[in-house]
């Protein structure tokens, strides 16, 4: 969890098409999201969202935070905003425990996905993820964990890389210090 990992993560995430930026504060990140987000925005109520009052911050900034049942937000909502559990430096991957259905809807349906990540949770590579991934599977509770590496892509027509097939067309990863260093939390 060194700055070396952060540099590598930013470089790898950019290479796979995720706009990745360091932010000075959560407020700056919120302002950035306000700038980029268009239309209905899904912000699932996770423990970090509650702790950091993210929904209120976004609403106050003027983001159209959806307040109803996510399944009613339409087939192609504008944006989704989430935190994440941890990141992998070598591949530019964000790992997000998404068992709560709202997290899944907010990260699969929208055109744009914003992820807020704490740089201290950046691991070297997916081998380093074996331990937290195993811990996340302790017990026998149902689990849905997503590795997200860049936006949705396909090369199924004439092998031409095309962004935005079935998942978000744009992925923004905003690195903010002090969110949470707990890999089990998002």
């Amino acid at each position, binding site marked *: 969890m060194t700055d070396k990992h952060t540099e590598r993560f930013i470089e790898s995430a950019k290479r796979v098409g995720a706009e990745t930026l360091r932010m000075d504060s959560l407020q700056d990140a919120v302002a950035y999201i306000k700038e980029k987000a268009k239309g209905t925005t899904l912000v699932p109520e996770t423990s970090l969202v509650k702790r950091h009052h993210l929904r209120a911050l976004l609403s106050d900034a003027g983001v159209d935070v959806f307040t109803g049942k996510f399944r009613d937000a339409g087939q192609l909502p504008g944006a989704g905003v989430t935190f994440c559990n941890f990141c992998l430096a070598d591949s530019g991957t964000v790992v997000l425990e998404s068992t709560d259905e709202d997290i899944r809807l907010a990260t699969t349906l929208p055109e744009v996905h914003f992820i807020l990540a704490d740089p201290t949770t950046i691991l070297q590579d997916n081998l380093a993820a074996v331990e937290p991934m195993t811990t996340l599977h302790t017990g026998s509770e149902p689990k*849905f964990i997503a590795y997200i590496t860049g936006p949705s892509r396909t090369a199924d027509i004439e092998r031409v890389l095309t962004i935005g097939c079935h998942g978000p067309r744009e992925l923004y990863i905003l690195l903010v210090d002090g969110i949470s260093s707990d890999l089990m939390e998002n």
Partner: protein
Amino acid sequence: MAADEKYKKSVETAIANPKLSKALHLFGDAYLIARENAYRGLDFEAMRTDLSAIKDEVRIRRKELLAEFIKNAEAAGSTVFIAKDTKEANDYVINLAKKKGAKLVAKSKSMVSEEAHLNKALAAQGIRASETDLGEWIVQLAGQRPSHMVMPAIHMFKEEVATLFNKEAGTSLSPEIKTLVDHARLRLRQEYFNADIGLTGANFLIANTGGIGLVTNEGNARLCATLPKVHVVFAGIHKLVRNMEDAIKITRLLPRNATGQLLTSYVTWIRGAVPVDGQQKEQHIVLIDGGREALYESKACQNALRCIQCGACANVCPVYQTVGGHVFGSIYISAIGIILTAFYEGLEKAKEITRACIGCRACVAVCPSKIDLEEIILHLRNEVTKEYGMGVVKNVAFKAVMKNRGLFHNMVRTASKLQRPITHKKSGEPDRRIIRHLPLHFLEKDFTEWRHLPAIAPKSFRDQFNTISQDVSNPKYRVGFFVGCGADFVYPEVGVSLIKVLNSLNVEVVFPKTQNCCGIPALYAGDTETGVDLAKQNVKAFSEAEVDYILAICPTCTMAVKRDFVDRLTDHPQWSAKAMALSNKTMDASAFLENILGASALLKATAEGKEFTYHDSCHLKRGSNVYKEPRALLQASGHQIKEMKNSDRCCGFGGTYSFLSHPQISKQITKDKVATIKDTGVKTVATDCPGCMIMLKGAVGKADETIRCAHTMELLAEALEQKK
């Protein structure tokens, strides 16, 4: 039409469509670069050794691991069903759909569902299955099957895709890829929302968590697993791994090897009945045997189930690049497809494609699970031969003639005289003889229209050996020379050159006269019996010779003596120890010169510099890992190398492949090689294999008479002559 005729026709049709082959070549070239970048800084060899060990452990412990998986999945709320075949698996899904009153199933990619023809089975019950992977959807709309494991619609072009989409939706989309992808995004979004059941495959089943993993790029699997109320996982039982660490290790190899990505856009880990719309999801995991247990039990073929389905064996296969996956495969394509077809659909179905492998081992070199695909394919070819025969020509050639050394060699001598009326002197090479045309017109198309055939030499190497005086007074080593049929009867000058080079370095050459063919042509045709017999003849000849090393100038012969004799004679204890002793001292001549004698230091600039390009023969590079040595030797002797593109891509020879079983495919592969040679602008192409020489001399000679193809040993001997 009979199956073999239908197959021949499909080969011809594919070859008549150069657009597909061109696309596959472009993809193959780009793939190699992307893959290399993806593994930068990692030890692929160590990673695949590790994965193969994991998969072997899983095979051995599969019953126990399967029970553990079921227990953990059930504890998390999943329902697990073991289907002994694909019919049972389909029936399970149909019953479930009926119980749920389901009308629509949204599917993400599942190869085993292709194997089960699940969509058809569902349709027969009035249940619509909608493929949501873009490539799978295209193939479904076209009423076809995937032609590649990772890129199902790689055989189609954007114009065809636009026509399909427009027909389905009544639109008039232009054939622009972005427009087409956007259309699929909008159109299929409705399907996830409307579907009663979401069906996905699984890239792994993790025993100690009871969870599954999905490795995807588009995001459709996540939607299929999230939106519908019921999730069905359709997976082969071979997807089991022990734990999270095993699964993560697969994710390190699979995307890198499949598409040159460090990781796909999404890796999704799902365990149990996750929440859906305020309730608990119903998750059914259907685990399918469908021939896998039988494959696990087959000692000769079981390693095929180490496969993680990356599709790399197709990406690098020259046969696949020539004819595509609809010809070279069935549900599963290319090298792994041959094996899986034999076990999942039956040997009969795999009969033709078993013979379509040219044996270049390109797939073996890139396989992330370290499967010796070629070896397994050869085994299956042997099974096909046992079951269906190998044809009259090969029967007589191998069983009646080759096994009898005296008869074989006498026949070659006679043939050398009989061919005279049809041989021609080749310009610029007064001693060389080639066949430009065969007397029977119908043979022209396959044989001499696109290449010269080599003529049998007037005097074989074995008949010349005694006349060669070796001026070596106090030899450093005595080496036995395994000449091989190509150098013995077609290019004896290569053997003569080798003696010159070795003698100049104070090494004496011994030639055991009772040596015979290495047996590979018979084995490749599926005739193990002749292969064993020939192995014994050669082991006897060389054991009696008592030499320090055994050298071959044909990489296929080197592999035969070094590896195959030992394998072929395992069941014959009195022979196997001798075979092993020979194996330990056998190597390719270039490797001996460079690695044992350090010849590049001794040969330093013996010749006047000439430019050359080097063709890596398949069995030398991928069979013996020799590729630096000949380059070092030739450069030391004063020549300058100018590398050709894809120097280690097969030349199209493949022994009897290019003459009897698949001359038309050979022709295309050779055409590629000739083009890359011509692109260098160099007039000398060096190689270390008489088989490649037959192909390259013939085809390059026909294309451009000013380009010369020579064995490394010939060029080295000439360099020594110049020095004198």
